[in-house]
């Protein structure tokens, strides 16, 4: 060996594998404006579609007159429910087992509902056509408040369900009831409450908000009449699922449907479901024989495609006097809007909300969820969280603070006292989950030491005294949050979408020169898959990440997968990638043994190739093995070096973290300042620390927005009052606080590389940290719970109701 031989460290570094802060390869095109998004798809003869939408939240549609619209130059067709009925597509199935109008069929059920689809030669003509469609509405009574949905005299929203006493998830109790879901042991829980020394009860609401990705929902549909093939470019988080859904509802052979998700500008759950725009563009293309583009504008995105949350959680905790929790009882009233178009695994009408026992060792718990209809947009998607996990985390984290206040205990101490202990993992929760791994005490203590939590509490105590003496008009809050997520849906034993198990997949093809291409069933929307997936392969098979091209989103070439949402990509596809890479490595080992003329068992893996045990100079690099795979494989072996893996995870993964928010609020104006925000995340094995940090920054920014003002609000008439970025709080760099990030590493024991998923943790853990900070700031004045969002005027209102405004 001479001096030029790279060291082991240099060889490892050259791979840019797991643990490396590799720069995002996709950013080369994104930062130069060279991404390729749906709106960049421009086909010859392409037409444009746009919707006539309802100004009413609830009304009968008496007539639709399209005569004047059809006279607008450039307008070719106006599609209504009547048109769609001829192809049996006036209604479509939802992911939640309900049906949804594609275009208003007899009535409208929410403001901005799709009523007619105008197709024209350009976008301007389409909009001019929209303005000329005359719709005659007869207004009906509007139902906005979910607490009034099941009143005996509540208006009947879904006439199509008349007489149906059973829905997709069991019996319906009322004409506006969708489902009741119940988990846990009611009797044991009631018993725990009956003998509890201390109990708390609070109705904790998580308001309606919206994922609002930078790029709105859109598609281009192109039907080739000769071949009978439909190609759809769309902003789909789950392209394969879309292909199957289209095959089922449009009755087209699945091999003749090509779904392509090009670059996607953020999804956050908004782009999981199927929307009327997709159906209408497809039908319009089939009818006209031309490609048809549909692109939502911001107002349409905020008001018509899937919202998130609108969960109203009546939460009770039973505990001993010294702060040991003995029972949890939660009832959720879930407002799903006009149609149940929630995007959850099919058997889970309230997602994984039964993670609501959180990080705590509750001996018993009982949960019921009632889903109801209202005159609001459909949805209920997982906005940067696993299914209903943010709601659950907010519920328990807020409730633990309320309990701490009642007991006169420090919120951090109460949590430390009730955490599931390290030695209890795998831990079976009272509501049915098996937590894979965790070390909560270590994470919490690290947070408390890093932030000097004790000193902050002391400062707070002094500030409170100063406030009482009238020396300051600011109150200071410390928001503690310790969350446990459940991500990686999911094991086929309990997770499917429309009957398709929620596995994921990877196919790797190595080329002769030691490079390769890898394709997955997932679809990045900004998560950086092109970067991190290659890193996993690099570490597994010793080929530099730069030599692995990652491709996702084309259903013709990618193996079937369930897509990217719910932090499932790393837990599921990440595992498939490692498993496919290991198949490659196993074949490579046979080839190396043949070439080095030894038995396979005499070889050991050494960073980027195989070495003969005890004979360090006898080494064959993976690069050379790739070449050999195409010319000199052992007799009887097929040439080539490819592998596919479909991974059905044995369990979910359970990332966790400890967050602290330090906030000051001016009681006279309600203006808050986030002085400090510390986020410690444990997502198991860390594939790319820089991407993790980026994900945490983004998720915290969304959490900040949601907790502090981001809201889809309706007035009593069912009009959306926050339907644009003027009123829907989208923080800029100016408002966004500075983030401090930290970590611990507790690998998942069942995942091939021990990784758990992180993209959504900061949103899940961040919202309770902000809300707890606001609540903590006011708690010494006697309040127990202030509902989100905590925008300026509501903070002022809280201060006023506590009598501190002189």
């Amino acid at each position: 060996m001479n001096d030029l031989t790279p060291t082991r460290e240099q060889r490892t570094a050259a791979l840019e594998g797991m643990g490396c802060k590799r720069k995002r390869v996709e950013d080369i095109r994104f930062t130069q404006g060279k991404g390729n998004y749906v709106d960049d798809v421009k086909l010859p003869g392409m037409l444009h579609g746009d919707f006539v939408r309802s100004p009413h939240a609830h009304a009968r549609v008496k007539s639709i007159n399209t005569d004047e619209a059809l006279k607008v130059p450039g307008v070719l067709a106006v599609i209504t429910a009547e048109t769609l009925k001829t192809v049996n597509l006036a209604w479509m199935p939802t992911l939640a087992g309900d049906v949804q109008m594609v275009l208003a069929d007899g009535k409208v059920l929410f403001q901005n509902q799709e009523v007619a689809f105008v197709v024209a030669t350009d976008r301007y003509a389409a909009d001019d056509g929209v303005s000329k469609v005359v719709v005659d509405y007869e207004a009906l009574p509007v139902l906005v408040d979910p607490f009034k949905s099941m009143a005996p005299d509540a208006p009947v929203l879904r006439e199509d369900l008349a007489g149906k006493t059973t829905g997709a998830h069991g019996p319906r109790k009322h004409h506006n009831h969708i489902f009741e879901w119940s988990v846990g042991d009611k009797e044991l829980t009631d018993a725990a409450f009956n003998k509890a020394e201390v109990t708390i009860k609070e109705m904790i609401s998580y308001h309606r908000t919206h994922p609002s990705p930078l790029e709105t929902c859109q598609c281009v549909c192109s039907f080739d009449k000769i071949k009978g093939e439909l190609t759809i470019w769309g902003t789909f988080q789950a392209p394969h699922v879309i292909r199957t859904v289209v095959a089922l509802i449009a009755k087209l052979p699945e091999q003749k449907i090509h779904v392509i998700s090009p670059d996607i500008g953020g999804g956050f759950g908004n782009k999981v479901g199927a929307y009327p725009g997709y159906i209408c563009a497809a039908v319009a293309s089939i009818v006209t024989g031309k490609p048809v583009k549909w692109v939502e504008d911001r107002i349409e995105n905020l008001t018509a495609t899937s919202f998130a949350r609108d969960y109203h959680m009546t939460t009770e905790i039973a505990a001993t006097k010294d702060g040991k929790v003995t029972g949890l009882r939660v009832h959720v009233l879930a407002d799903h809007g006009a149609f149940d178009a929630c995007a959850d695994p099919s058997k889970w009408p309230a997602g994984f909300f039964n993670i609501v026992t959180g990080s705590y060792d509750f001996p018993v718990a009982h949960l019921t969820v009632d889903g109801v209809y209202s005159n609001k947009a459909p949805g209920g998607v997982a906005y940067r969280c696993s299914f209903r996990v943010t709601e659950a985390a907010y519920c328990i984290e807020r409730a633990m603070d309320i309990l701490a206040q009642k007991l006169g205990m420090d919120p951090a101490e109460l949590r430390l006292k009730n955490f599931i202990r390290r030695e209890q993992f795998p831990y079976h929760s009272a509501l049915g989950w098996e937590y894979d791994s965790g070390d909560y005490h270590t994470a919490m203590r690290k947070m408390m030491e890093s932030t000097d939590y004790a000193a902050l509490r002391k400062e707070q105590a002094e500030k409170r005294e100063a406030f009482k003496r009238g020396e300051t008009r600011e109150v200071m809050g410390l928001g503690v949050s310790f969350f446990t997520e459940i991500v990686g849906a999911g094991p086929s034993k309990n997770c499917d979408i429309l009957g398709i198990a929620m596995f994921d997949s990877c196919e790797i093809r190595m080329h002769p020169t030691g490079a390769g291409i890898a394709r997955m069933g997932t679809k990045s929307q900004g998560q950086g898959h092109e970067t991190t997936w290659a890193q996993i392969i690099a570490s597994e098979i010793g080929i530099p990440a730069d030599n692995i091209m990652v491709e996702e989103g084309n259903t013709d070439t990618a193996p079937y997968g369930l897509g990217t949402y719910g932090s499932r990509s790393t837990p599921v596809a990440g595992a498939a990638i490692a498993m496919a890479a290991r198949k490659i490595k196993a074949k490579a080992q046979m080839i190396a043994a043949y070439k080095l003329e030894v038995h396979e068992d005499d070889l050991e893996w050494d960073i980027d190739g195989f070495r003969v045990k005890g004979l360090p100079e006898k080494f064959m690099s993976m690069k050379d093995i790739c070449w050999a795979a195409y010319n000199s494989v052992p007799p009887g072996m097929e040439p080539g070096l490819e592998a596919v893996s479909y991974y059905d995870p044995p369990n979910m993964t359970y990332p966790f973290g400890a967050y602290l928010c330090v906030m000051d609020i001016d009681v006279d104006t309600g203006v808050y300042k986030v002085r400090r925000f510390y986020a410690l995340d444990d997502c198991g094995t860390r594939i790319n620390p820089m991407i993790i940090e980026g994900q945490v920054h983004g998720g915290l920014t969304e959490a900040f927005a949601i907790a502090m003002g981001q809201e889809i609000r309706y007035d009593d008439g069912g009009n959306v009052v926050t339907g644009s970025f003027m009123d829907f709080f989208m923080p800029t760099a100016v408002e966004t606080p500075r983030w401090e990030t930290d970590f611990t590493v507790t690998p998942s024991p069942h995942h091939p590389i021990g990784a758990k998923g992180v993209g959504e943790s900061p949103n899940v853990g961040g919202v309770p940290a902000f809300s707890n900070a606001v609540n903590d700031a006011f708690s010494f004045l006697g309040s127990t719970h202030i509902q989100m969002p905590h925008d300026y005027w509501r903070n002022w209102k809280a201060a006023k109701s506590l009598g501190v405004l002189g």
Partner: protein
Amino acid sequence: MIPGPFGYHRPASVGDAIKLLASLGEEARPLAGGHSLIPMMKLRLATPGHLVDLHGIAGLKGIHRDGNRIAIGAMTTQHELLASDEIRSSLPILQEAAALIADPQVRYRGTIGGNVANGDPGNDMPALMLTLGAAYRLEGPSGAREVMASDFYQGAYFTALEPGEILTSVTIPLPAAGHGYAYEKLKRKVGDYATAAAAVVLTMAGGKVASCAIGLTNLHETPLLAVDAANAVIGTSLDAASLKKAAAAAEAIMSPAADARGPVEYRKHVGGIMVTRALQRAAHRAK
């Protein structure tokens, strides 16, 4: 988000613009920076048949000192106000307020003429114009006239502009040497209109307020001059009781709309606080 069809015209002189507006009639609207008008057109809340773009008229730009008055051409952008040395030294309150309008992209296009002529209660410049005692020059088919800012605003989007008239310049008397000023604006985020805002220009003598004017933004359907509030502090040292009186007097004339920024009660309350804070900061700055 797509405007309806409209005709586009780009005259080269004020005279041509006036002629165009007269011949095109009610359907025509002047176009300045477009940052109020075009969003309205995209929502089809405004559907002018013709836009008369004022960007081709060189004479509508620029900042000139004319004795003890500053004249600002209608097409002067907010960015140009921020970059002007003349404004920095003579009318620093305009810069303080302009910097709180929207974001740099909007300020590169948005003009002072459009801002004051628009008549939207959310615009920041009108209250400043009342506070500073500005006058607007209006030119139309029947000639030119000058209207005081205090007589210009009649209701939301209703102003003294007659059909076919163009606002060509804004004239502001120089505030007294050593004056104190402040513009306090509470908003939810960058790019938001005021939840409440107050402009104060005052002079101090011997530790007491000698003269004072207070303007209010977005607290009524028009900008307001809070005369009683100003009178409540003149002659005082801005002690707590006088500040309280001023805030109460200002609140008494406010009638903001309830919107996503907050209910009426909140907007009035913070309106009072903006007055208090602006008075304190202005006094602190006065020499």
